[in-house]
């Protein structure tokens, strides 16, 4: 019995304590209608009938801009660690992310006529990495956090209660609806949010 149970115990220990595989799938929004790009001169009413309410909106100097988006994010990671055995002296991790989506942007003048339209589709490698980390795991090899956040409308009421750099830069914040808009994952270290020092 002793000889038979030892391999089972060892196998279970190896499976349970040494490795783990994680898969995360994020679906944000639904696919956009498969229509041709709206023509210049299309009215706001026609655009709303065709596409529904936009997810993002902002005033512009010449009118306003509306955007519709859909994201699908696939995040895979595998890790090997002895940490659960109390010997957290070494861990090895691998992870990668793929990002698929589409974004449709329409601009309108003050007479509610479309002045421009653009649409993009992408299916890209979104990053990833490998790590061998002794003692403590400092680095997450894959992170989709900046792509999966809530839409900015939720923060509109509290937009003036940010840290001071963010509040002072509110006039340039794309979440305000007054200063343009930006896609998910746009870096904040450069551009109109750089003064917020996030």
């Amino acid at each position, binding site marked *: 019995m002793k000889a038979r*149970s030892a391999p089972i*115990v060892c196998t279970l220990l190896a499976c349970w304590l040494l490795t783990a*595989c*994680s898969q995360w799938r994020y*679906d944000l929004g639904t696919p956009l209608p498969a229509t041709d790009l709206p023509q210049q001169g299309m009215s706001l009413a026609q655009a709303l009938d065709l596409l*529904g309410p936009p997810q993002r909106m902002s005033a512009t100097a010449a009118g306003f801009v509306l955007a519709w988006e859909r994201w699908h994010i696939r995040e895979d990671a595998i890790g090997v660690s002895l940490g659960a055995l109390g010997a957290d002296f070494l861990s090895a991790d691998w992870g990668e992310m793929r990002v698929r989506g589409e974004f449709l942007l329409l601009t309108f003048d003050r007479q*509610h006529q479309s002045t421009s339209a653009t649409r993009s589709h992408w299916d890209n490698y979104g990053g990833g990495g490998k790590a061998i980390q002794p003692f403590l795991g400092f680095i997450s090899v894959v992170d989709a956090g900046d792509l999966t956040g809530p839409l900015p409308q939720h923060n509109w009421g509290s937009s003036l209660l940010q840290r001071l750099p963010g509040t002072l830069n509110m006039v340039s914040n794309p979440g305000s609806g007054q200063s343009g808009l930006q896609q998910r994952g746009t870096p904040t270290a450069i551009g109109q949010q750089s003064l917020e020092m996030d």
Partner: protein
Amino acid sequence: MKQKALLIALLLGVGLLGACAQFESKRGVEVNWQTAVTDKLTRGESTRANVLALLGPPSQVIALDGETALYYLFEQSQGDGLVLIVYNRMRIDTRYDRAIFFFDEKDILTEYSTRIYAPDEG
């Protein structure tokens, strides 16, 4: 002997039975823009006060150089996961119920659009 059996049973329980998870996250304003409600609105006649009375405070008010837009958003995420220790899978599906209303400089409704997703709608 009894201890070994107990150990194996414990490991099997943890390693093979695993766990499952299900969660839901809701944020935003209450969804009051059902068709039965918005049918009471008429483009060119209804006012901003009418919309606010029917739908309540919006998620965002956007000033458009004389015009204004009210944006209502309700965001719902549903997730489910399988946690088997050695293999873990999570899936998170987010839907945006939303409505947008445009008003001219006299606060008259000029355009609007709404969307509410059915639970199983892709």
